[in-house]
């Protein structure tokens, strides 16, 4: 199937917005689903930078995040929220995108600290990836250097409210405008950048395939796509002389 055929092909949209349906029963059911979804959230806290130090107080007895129904989780497959806690270097950003693509949809991204917004204090640095929402859709930013645990909890409550109202749709944006995000990623990581996840196939699966899913950057990706290789997992110890005692 050529790219043009893929673009022109119409896919049924499975995801329905709460309140958007004409049928009152369907609407009530959608709202109930969104409400339940907003009340049980698992966080994957990727400790990318300084902001991670304010998460233990927020999670433990003093500020007690779990009373909101939000609890930490260590595996991306089980998580709903990706918490980017601060400064992201170019090397980290690859892993962040890898982690984000592993998470099951619907998934939400929160950027904590000024560094995720605009590079913060390290705006001059050669290693910093500024403006996280160029590379992945961010649903909510919690600004500050660093935000207090109260601010983190307020931000999470705001995200819950957004999910309940059906407004936290960054993950849909990633499928619908994949070419846009991939373009930014390729500009930073080089044209041969790829992850093991097939985002285009997922976009079709969720019925979120749009005109902007494919484009010049996805074409480039398909040219370079190699068999699945883990991301720099080789230890480089194949030859004898490299083995340390």
């Amino acid at each position, binding site marked *: 199937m050529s790219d043009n055929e893929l673009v022109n092909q119409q896919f049924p949209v499975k995801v329905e917005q709460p309140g958007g349906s004409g049928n009152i029963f369907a609407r009530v059911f959608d709202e109930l689903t969104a409400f339940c979804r907003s009340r049980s959230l698992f966080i994957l806290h990727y400790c990318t930078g300084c902001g991670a130090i304010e998460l233990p107080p927020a999670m433990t007895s*003093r500020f007690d995040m779990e009373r909101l129904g939000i609890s930490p989780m260590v595996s991306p497959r089980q998580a709903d929220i990706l918490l980017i806690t601060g400064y992201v270097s170019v090397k980290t950003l690859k892993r962040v995108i890898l982690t984000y693509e592993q998470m099951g949809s619907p998934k939400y991204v929160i950027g904590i600290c000024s560094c995720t917004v605009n590079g913060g204090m390290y705006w001059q640095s050669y*290693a910093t990836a500024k403006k996280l929402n160029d590379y992945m859709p961010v649903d909510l930013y919690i600004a500050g250097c660093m935000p207090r645990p109260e601010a983190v909890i307020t931000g999470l409550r705001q995200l819950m409210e957004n999910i309940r109202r059906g407004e936290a749709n960054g993950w849909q944006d990633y499928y619908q405008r994949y070419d846009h995000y991939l373009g930014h990623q390729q500009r930073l990581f080089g044209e041969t950048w790829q992850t093991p996840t097939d985002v285009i196939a997922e976009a079709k699966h969720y019925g979120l395939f749009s005109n902007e899913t494919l484009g010049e950057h996805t074409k480039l990706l398909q040219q370079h796509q190699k*068999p699945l290789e883990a991301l720099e997992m080789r230890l480089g110890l194949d030859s004898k002389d490299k083995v340390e005692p």
Partner: protein
Amino acid sequence: MRAENYEARNHPPSNEFEINFGPNHPGIEGNYALKVKVHGDEIVAARADGGYLHRGFEKLMEQRLWIQNIALVPRICVPDPAPMEVAYSMAVEQLCGLDVPERAQWLRVLQLELSRVAAHLFTFGGHAATTGMYSPMFWGVADRDLILDLFEELTGGRVYSIYNIPGGVRRDVPDGFLQRLSDTLDYLDSRLPDYDNLLFTNRVFVTRAKGTGPISQTQALEWSVTGPNLRATGLKFDVRRDDPYLVYDQLDFDIPTEEPGDAWARTLVRRGELQQSVRILRQVVERLPGVAGPIRAPIPNPLAWKVPAGETYVRIESSKGELGWYVVSDGSEKPYRVHVRGPSSMHAVQVLEHLVTGARIEDVAQIMFSLDACPPEVDR
């Protein structure tokens, strides 16, 4: 990845395989990775993989004014930011020949020791969590928050206080602060038996930590190990005592040491240090009201402040080990070259790689936490 692109990879017939610890792993403190090669559950080779937190501090500092760098330096080590500020301020003072008022020196000791207590409480929790015990972590974080409250009252910031500037400190203690500090110290003292019952005499913890990741004294000296990790091998070396700075020579405290140099000894040394820090803080509470005078030496206009040309090396004892600042000035408004000698880069790279080789896979996280390496300080 398209399904048709999958190819069977030719794995050599071997019992060895590679595992990534981190950069996103609950057993790694921060954004840091360790690649290990395992045979069964024994590790045969390991390599530290840093760089995830690299920000280029030393380069950034060359592009900012001397006074602006004060805001940058505490970010180098997040759990224990105070020593960074103090050491940088001391380096600038040495270059300028500034004399710090005595009251400011006492206030700096107050901040340094509070920061050390907070950092050690955090480390206990992290170390306990790697052996499956989460209660000490909750306790440690909750008790650390009391100290963060004191920081907030004293400096306005919970974690990054930016309290020290070259020449002194920014603010004096608020009314009633010393009393509240004293109450917190009483509370911490009363908590130590609880910590002993929960953690330090816990059979699970003792059995897992004893004999794990041992370093001999000779190895420790060869690998430039400093701080509690060095004192856990029996060597009584502490910058506060052997090369006194601020007012540490007027204070009365012990240097706790242990012999075996394993994970257990390292944690026990930190417990002893926490007690000694509380002891130092009590002396500060007692003697600070008697030290009158200004809290800050007059400094020139910070926006046009030219530091005389020269170079200096300043070292202090942070909660992780010996922290050094090598600062070169060419007489302009900005530093010519800055280098940070962080203790963690030795602990988290060469020491960690050697210690985990031969260890079992479940001990990797514990060894890393017991070394108390701070990833942002490794990468800088």
